[in-house]
């Protein structure tokens, strides 16, 4: 009896959850579907859901017009590079905040977050001039550094909350065994924090991938990532929904796939120390 009720309830939950999931996902699904339509079908009235002539011509045209491989590799390099560089710098900082806290630790953390509050567009000209001076316009490494700095506060904070959940006794035990500070971080602490570090990596990779102000304004050819790729397909004169959908699908597909494969990791790690 009880079993049947549970199953009934489970079925109800399933229906509701799937419907909501479908609704939330629908805009993305619609974009993907539109990318396989002709421009005329894309604005058909009433809209056609599945029964249109599926075509790959939009993808062919986008591939023909743009050097997708270069945009993609730049996106991966800039997002990946900035995230990894950020983690390397953030681990020691987060370690010291978590295990040798002082009265000012919380203030420093909040100050770090507050550096994200300066509106980017306000400093476009200064930063642009600075980049000219340093000769780093359209330079991948410069973008890696800038995006790293933008996301560093979040990285430090996430790592800090993970490290704080690691019991101090383990570290003390390793110290008793004569481990140096470096060994302690490398061989004891880091392995224990792997889930946390992994989800920090993922979240910041996503944030860096989607950053569209600096990546668009400081690049032209060599360092231009997928955000610039999208800007060449939005709102031209003429019909563009289908081509824009194809370009959008190509821009979000890599990150979507990465996200799907790693979503368990992301869910496990996205706690910000909220779970105790």
């Amino acid at each position, binding site marked *: 009896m009880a079993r049947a009720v549970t199953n009934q309830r489970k079925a109800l939950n399933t229906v509701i959850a799937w419907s909501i999931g479908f609704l939330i996902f629908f805009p993305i699904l619609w974009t993907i579907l539109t990318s396989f339509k002709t421009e005329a079908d894309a604005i058909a009235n009433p809209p056609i859901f599945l029964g249109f002539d599926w075509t790959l011509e939009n993808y062919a045209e986008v591939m023909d017009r743009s050097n997708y491989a*270069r945009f993609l590799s730049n996106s991966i390099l800039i997002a*990946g590079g900035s995230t990894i560089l950020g983690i390397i710098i953030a681990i020691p900082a987060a370690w010291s905040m978590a295990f040798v806290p002082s009265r000012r630790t919380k203030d420093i953390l909040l100050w770090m977050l507050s550096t994200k509050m300066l509106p980017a567009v306000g400093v476009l000209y200064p930063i642009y001039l600075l980049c000219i001076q340093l000769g780093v316009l359209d330079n991948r490494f410069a973008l890696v550094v800038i995006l790293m700095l933008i996301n560093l506060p979040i990285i430090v904070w996430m790592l800090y909350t993970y490290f704080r959940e690691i019991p101090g006794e383990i570290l003390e035990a390793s110290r008793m065994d004569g481990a140096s500070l470096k060994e302690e971080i490398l061989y004891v602490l880091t392995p224990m924090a792997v889930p946390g570090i992994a989800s920090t990596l993922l979240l910041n990779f996503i944030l860096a991938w989607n950053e569209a102000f600096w990546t668009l304004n400081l690049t032209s050819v060599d360092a231009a990532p997928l955000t610039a790729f999208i800007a060449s397909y939005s709102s031209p004169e*003429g019909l563009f929904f289908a081509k824009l959908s194809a370009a959008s699908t190509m821009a979000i597909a890599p990150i979507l796939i990465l996200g799907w494969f790693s979503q368990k990791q992301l869910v496990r790690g996205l706690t910000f120390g909220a779970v105790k």
Partner: protein
Amino acid sequence: MKMVSRALMGATALCAISGMALADGHATTITIATVNNGDMIRMQGYTDQFTEDTGISVEWVTLEENVLRQRVTTDITTNGGQFDIMTIGMYETPIWGANGWLVPLDGLSEEYNVDDILPAMAGGLSHDGTLYAAPFYGESSMVMYRTDLMEAAGLEMPDAPTWEFIAEAAAAMTDRENDVNGICLRGKPGWGEGGAFITAMSNSFGARWFDEDWNAQFDTEEWANTLNFYNDMMQASGPAGFATNGFTENLNLFNQGLCGMWIDATVAASFVTNPDDSEYADSVGFALAPDNGLGRRSNWLWAWALAIPAGTQQEEAAMTFLEWATSTDYIEMVAANEGWANVPPGARISLYENPDYQAVPFAQMTLDSILSADPNNPTVDPVPYVGVQFAAIPEFAGIATEVSQEFSAAYAGQQTIEEALATAQAITNEAMEAAGYR
């Protein structure tokens, strides 16, 4: 973790490949920033041809209009040197030319035949008589209408209609039952969108942006008449949500058969007569933009042009490309491959003298529209500025965008026309005072 490291390895490999492809290229490479309109995309497609002919490689930075403007303006004003050629319009060219930021185009070759450029275009792309950008294509605006709907309404479109007739025809063609709107016009905020349309329209109502002492003129009756006429007509015969419609939205509506008339850029003609894009392609007619008998029509003048920033390392190669892309040879090459209807219009006199091109249905009306716009003398009353749908001063883009936002808010019913005009007047005078004009 594994995923990430594998992805990174993949990225490194990809970079290595693309790096090699670059290193393998030609000795000279120029970088061109351009807008993502159809004619430029087509030009991009002929890059290989150009590289083959000249040995110069081309890197394209193709961006949508707003982003492009932001990008090239930042670069030119800071002397960033990111581009060897920039695609700019009639608004930017005289301002940048005056600042000495562009290479003057006074050394063009004999074969290029600079005198073949339409005088209206050359005039708008010059400062103090020196040409600073070569027009790739030029446009004005005109009425496009559905001949079948016009006939059904029992009316006949004159070649040079008045606003009175347009409003009457719009009301007659409107069929709310079948979602047919008599008229579709731009209302979208932005100086290059709804702002351009209403400014060009206001010229035919005798209005102007500034008097000769740079005082804003939005408190005049002419502006009130313009906005009220526009708004009344659009409320009665326009599509829902016209306050957010720009060129693209209206093109979609027209091609779907939801508009009786559409007044917009002449380049739209090749889209609305293309059977691949529209099932109504066979029943489209053209007419001059309307007037009110005051001696000025409501059409604008615009050119997308190629300019070379002063200080580029590749001036010679850039000049070679500029001449190639805006030459008559280029036009003939496109015509040979894709037909005369697809060549970049509005730049060359010789194009309109070509009998093959005269056979294109919208050719003559495009030329007549371009010829009837005069950027040096755009309004009924005299003005201190140059430009039909804009005033070629650095402050204009910012002011006009804010003003057009006020207008759009009025179209959307968030405020009255009077309130919008009062705010526009205040914004403009405030900005002009800050800039030291008044």
